[in-house]
């Protein structure tokens, strides 16, 4: 299925959000996630199944004013 990760299109198989993060190389990173604009907590990633067309945001710390 086709999804978007941080604005870039990706082809993925059936997966949870947790597995997707590991597949993409985020293991051990301090990041937060949102699916289709809604917050997806770290504790819920294992139960959050990715659907076709989902828009995933993966964010990390950044300088801010």
């Amino acid at each position, binding site marked *: 299925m086709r999804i978007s990760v941080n604005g870039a299109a990706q082809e993925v198989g059936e997966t949870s959000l947790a597995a997707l993060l590991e597949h993409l190389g985020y293991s051990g990173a*301090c990041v937060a996630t949102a699916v289709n604009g809604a917050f997806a907590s770290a504790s819920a990633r294992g139960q959050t199944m990715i659907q076709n067309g989902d828009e995933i945001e993966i964010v990390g*710390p*950044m300088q801010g*004013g």
Partner: protein
Amino acid sequence: MQVYGVTLGSRLMLGTSQYPSPAVLTEAVQRSGAEVVTVSLRRESATARAGQAFWQIIRDLGVHVLPNTAGCHSAREAITTAKMAREVFATNWIKLEVIGDHDTLQPDPFELMEAARVLSQDGFEVFPYTTEDCVVADRLLQAGCRVLMPWGAPIGSGRGLNNPYGLRSLRARFADVPMVIDAGIGLPSHAAQAMEMGFDAILLNTAIAKAGNPAAMAGAFRLAVEAGRAARLADPIDARDMAVPSTPVFGQAFAS
């Protein structure tokens, strides 16, 4: 000062953006004496992991972290961003920015109030970036905010206090609410002016980060904030329109 039950020894808070290097950022924070720095969230690359290195620098500073929702234009975006920030930075503090105008980066009071209400109910300790509008301030307090962050001038403009009368009115109207002047400060004298007016603290970024010597400017702002606070506590005189001699006129030679 106290914000949400946390006692702060410094009344200067710093943004962490736009510094020429991480080393300069670290030196500026240390010279400023700031105990609170603002941070943000952006898309993280799995390969570059730039955010992870930045976060380690901030943790090494040993200061309180105030995440922001910069770039959000709706309550929904800001609420989601705040929840992500709480998880990444492990704090209930959130500097709530909901921008309503692209040119002035003026906050959208309607979306701001809605986000403040939802986040306060969800256990967040909200620092709302707002204007000097007393009605908006009252609504934000009703929404659960215990700190207000009125702007001095548009973000990054360096113009100082654009509306001293409005800010003075806001200060007087809510005398007991901790207020941090956020945005628009360009010079230490602007910070001192705000502190002399009775504001509790200053939050700034660009004026230090983009100075020719950020660390030295951080030191200057530290002194200005301390001087302004000391002056406020010393009860300044009222301004007058006409001169009043300071040297006694009694016994003056050549007097008729």
